[in-house]
């Protein structure tokens, strides 16, 4: 994108006008030393900020001026609104999302999300390192499903290289993706329940997630930042102890999910809190580019695993749950059902796991085995060149989108050849999913905001990247 082509964007709350009515209005509702608390005025600290409190006439004039200036909105209520800053550090914003809420009583009249508090510049960082060196950065995108991010990134670069993994490699990646999906949805579910007040569910889901972390440890050696994939394969094959562990997990997981289901799905309070709340219509979901369970909750049958199968997903028998109303409850149900389908996929993969190599056979672009590096000069040189210069990637551009737990995680790579991308763009599903907030939040109550945020299940590491 050409620099400076976009006009300078000013956030609405930065404009002088809103600051003015923030100072003029919102604080009328709060104690005011000279007028409200004259009794205790002498005890007020000197740092208290005195605010102007105009009378009715002045208020009317302000409102008329506001209207005359061509502004729309409920100007008669202008003086009665409260600007509430929610986040970036707030228990319900799941990280560092900041929402500037304009409220009329408990009703939201306007919501402005403010993202970027967790911006690390991952896309720029990617331009300064070889393809394999970027894998650990993908762990930190959606840090609730690092395995799936590793896979999505590796798949994108492999698409650029024109590689296809052997069957065993693909099956292992499916296992990674589906474990990551369960892990991410469990947290999304638990956090959603906690936002609506049911804290116990959160701990139940965390017990299960802990088992998935154990599995991650057996798969990759790390529990959280797995960095399991490499371009063209994985760091290592699945270890023997993995299989009994994963089977035990799958056996225990479904009863545990049923328990969570029993606690929430037909709980009257929970249903009241989530049904017909935060409704996203089919059209809105598509036009705002939502993906993942948030899109399917609105009744759009779109799952990349079905529409553009990758990793051999077409071989497995599974269903894609679709919502109807597009409210928080449907999104919740979609996630619960997706976890059940993931278990179904995992069982099929484990049954039909092929044997054979897990990496592509392109000896020029893959590190040689360690034993030969230590004994042969040519292999040592090859090892050295590969790890300093990177792969020999062709010139060109690719986009690969994977169906990640949160939605479509896409990597666009523009390569001018060599081991380093010229430009790497990450299409983060959480970022896109958050864009609908200003559309759906107004008209809801303060308590609905946390329910909606919980049901959208975003993660700021990915949104801000």
């Amino acid at each position: 994108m050409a620099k400076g082509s976009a006009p300078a964007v000013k956030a609405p709350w930065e404009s002088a006008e809103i600051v003015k009515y923030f100072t003029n209005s919102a604080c009328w509702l709060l104690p005011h030393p000279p007028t409200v608390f004259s009794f205790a005025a002498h005890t007020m600290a000197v740092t208290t900020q005195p605010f102007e409190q105009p009378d009715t006439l002045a208020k009317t004039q302000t409102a008329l001026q506001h209207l005359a200036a061509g502004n729309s909105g409920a100007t008669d209520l202008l003086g009665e609104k409260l600007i509430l800053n929610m986040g970036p550090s707030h228990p319900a914003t799941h990280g560092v999302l900041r929402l500037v809420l304009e409220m009329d009583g408990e009703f939201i009249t306007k919501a402005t999300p403010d993202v970027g508090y967790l911006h690390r510049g991952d896309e720029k960082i990617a331009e300064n390192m070889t393809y394999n060196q970027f894998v650990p950065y993908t762990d930190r995108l959606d840090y609730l499903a690092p395995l799936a991010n590793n896979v999505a990134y590796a798949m994108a670069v492999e698409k650029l290289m024109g590689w296809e993994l052997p069957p065993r490699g693909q099956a292992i990646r499916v296992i990674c993706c589906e474990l990551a999906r369960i892990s991410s949805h469990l947290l999304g579910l638990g956090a959603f329940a906690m936002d609506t007040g049911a804290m116990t569910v959160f701990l139940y889901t965390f017990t299960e997630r802990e088992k998935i972390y154990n599995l991650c440890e057996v798969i990759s050696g790390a529990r959280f930042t797995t960095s399991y994939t490499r371009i063209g394969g994985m760091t290592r094959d699945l270890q023997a102890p993995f299989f009994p562990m994963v089977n035990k997990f799958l056996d225990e997981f479904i009863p545990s999910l049923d328990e969570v289901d029993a606690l929430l799905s037909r709980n009257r309070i929970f249903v009241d809190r989530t049904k017909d709340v935060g409704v996203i219509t089919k059209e809105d979901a598509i036009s705002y580019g939502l993906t993942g369970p948030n899109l399917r909750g609105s009744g759009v049958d779109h799952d990349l695993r079905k529409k553009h199968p990758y990793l051999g997903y077409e071989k497995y028998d599974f269903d894609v749950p679709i919502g109807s109303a597009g409210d928080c409850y449907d999104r919740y149900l979609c996630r619960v059902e997706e976890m059940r389908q993931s278990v179904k996929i995992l069982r099929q993969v484990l049954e039909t796991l092929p044997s054979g190599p897990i990496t592509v056979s392109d000896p020029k672009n893959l590190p040689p085995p360690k034993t030969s590096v230590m004994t042969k000069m040519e292999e040592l040189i090859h090892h050295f060149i590969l790890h300093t210069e990177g792969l020999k990637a062709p010139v060109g551009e690719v986009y690969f989108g994977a169906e990640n737990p949160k939605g479509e995680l896409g990597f666009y790579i523009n390569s001018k050849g060599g081991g380093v991308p010229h430009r790497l763009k990450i299409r983060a599903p959480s970022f896109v999913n958050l864009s609908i907030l200003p559309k759906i939040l107004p008209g809801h109550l303060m308590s609905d905001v946390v329910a909606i945020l919980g049901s959208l299940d975003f993660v700021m590491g990915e949104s801000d990247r």
Partner: protein
Amino acid sequence: MDFLNDIPWMLIAASLAKTLFLIFGVVLPIVSYTVYAERRVSALIQDRLGPNRTGFPISLFGFEKDLQLFLGGLGQPVADAMKFLLKEEFTPAHVNKFYFWLAPVLAMVPALSTLAVLPFGNFLFGQKMVVADVNVGILYVFAVASVGVYGIVLAGWSSNSKYPFLGSIRASSQMISYELSLGLSAVPVLMIIGNLNLSEAIQYQIDNGWLLLPFTDGKLTLRELFLWIPVFVSFIIFTISMFAETNRLPFDLPESETELVAGYHTEYSAMKFALFFLGEYAAMIAGSSIIVVLFLGGWHVPFLPINTLESSTTPAGIALGFLHITAFFAKVVGILIFFIWVRWTLPRFRFDQLMKLGWLYLFEIALVNIFITAAILAWVK
């Protein structure tokens, strides 16, 4: 110096002793151990352990190991209290200091004051086990308990901050709304008992069986069976309203930590926060005590003899007196565990749903319930 003789010194001394025993000997320990129970029971519900290793630090006094009793972790409330006392007493610069300091007091005092009229036992050492045996007992309880809302409203108001402010608005409307159904649901009980004195309420239940379990006097008449229906409805409404009055989940909107950070006490720290925290538990104990007195026979243990004023100084009478006190607090603890159990099971209501439940359902049902009770009292002999 004649007027000195007119002052009932014995009565004052006895009341003082009873107050000290009740507040410092029983209720405050129960408050701190309810906090401990909350953590252990929630841990039990959530497949965790909870605080299980804080003993009493007798190793400070030369012993080899700290004292670990029963489950372990029983020293936790002591450690918590020490922490609250030793933390910095921070008052933000933007608050209204007078009300900011007044609010925690107003949260704690009414909850403890309601205990004055609650008969927590029968007789012991020639004394009736109630601090003030007044004939407007239940009215006094409602009147004093309703002052508790000021603590929360003032806390939110004086904090001069938006989250506490929203929390206190919710609290004031919630508590005022639910006081209606709370009061109305108690009316059928009072109609049946025919007295506002809480000691008399217990006496009625000794004679006729507990209101909620009418067979505890050994017989079940048709009238009791008919009256059980409105009593049960009253009990449900009363308990639900008590949850709302004490701001417990599913009605903990004033605090709702995932929405309003910490609600009305966001700006509070150290002992001032502890007063809100303990005030909530003290209010729970007061509420549970009222439920026990009105519906579960107070200190009465069915099928056991009851001591009298005369016999309460004999060894058997003293044993019975202590048994009654224990029975009362055992029932209270049972209700408290129920409070905790509900809290860790249910999600939270939304503000409008809470209002709808209070005004459209509980209020109406409680009102109709009064007429049904009156009809049964009039026609079923």
